[in-house]
């Protein structure tokens, strides 16, 4: 089994370098995903709704720091979701036995 610390290092490293690609290069190149191109071809537009952490940004925080903080918030939310799932599946397993 891979040590938990090794997983953590991989996740933290990915989050720390992510603004370089998600913000700096995005601004530099001005790109869009193939899906954005396809949606534009159809003349459709994404609904413009308010969302507190939309596009991995945190209101009032520098975009780079906001992107990094969003990464940690997201990983925390992933861990919490799987923790809840673990409790539910353990309960179902015990009930079955």
């Amino acid at each position, binding site marked *: *089994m*891979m040590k*938990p610390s090794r*997983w953590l290092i*991989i*996740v933290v490293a*990915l*989050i720390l*370098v*992510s603004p370089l*690609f*998600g913000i700096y*290069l*995005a601004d*530099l*190149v*001005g*790109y*869009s*995903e*193939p*899906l954005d*191109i*396809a*949606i534009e*071809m*159809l003349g*459709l*537009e*994404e*609904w413009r*709704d308010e*969302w507190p*952490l*939309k*596009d*991995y940004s945190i209101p009032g925080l520098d975009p780079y720091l906001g*992107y990094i903080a*969003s*990464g940690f*918030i*997201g*990983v925390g*939310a*992933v*861990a919490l*979701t*799987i*923790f809840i*799932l*673990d409790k539910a*599946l*353990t309960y*179902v*397993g015990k009930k*079955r036995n």
Partner: protein
Amino acid sequence: MHIPDGVLSINVVVSTYAVLVGVAYAAFSKISRVWSSSLTGKTSSIAAVVFAAQMINWPIPGGTSLHFVGGALSGIMLGPWAGFTAMLTVLLVQALVFHDGGLTALGANAINMAVVAVFSGYVLYKVLKRSAWIAGFTSGWLSVFLAGTLCGIELWLSNPLSIAPLIVMALWHAALGVVEGAITASAIVYVKRKAPQLIEV
């Protein structure tokens, strides 16, 4: 590849959610029989890595970009049902916390990235696993090509007057899948060398 709100027709939204509910029921029934603390740790670790890796968008000259999807990698390292669970968790967090992928499109996004990408990657790796690099590369490539093409089909079914977006999605993802294949293959070869017991196939 995350479809936003306002793009899919109501028929596609309802049908994709119905399929997602069916697959999720099957997945949770299957994994509840084998669920353990080690599988919990492995699933959350893979899901966290995929979430963080998806935040890295690579710009491609010509005005487009790609990010790692991770469906094939999840399927190969966790098996199809736990792989589906890891990918669904990532998509849920992206949609609910960051609105990356619409709530109305969650069914479609989950079918593309948590079902088709995971299962196709898992099956192809199983067939070709004699060579880890070739199996990892082809399963990564196919998973993204199929997921992107299905995403194009969902757009086309929602807007049947134009087939051009379907062609755009299929062609772009056939090309972008090469990067997914290379990352998946490199990750699998590394894990196979350092901790082969982590590979589920």
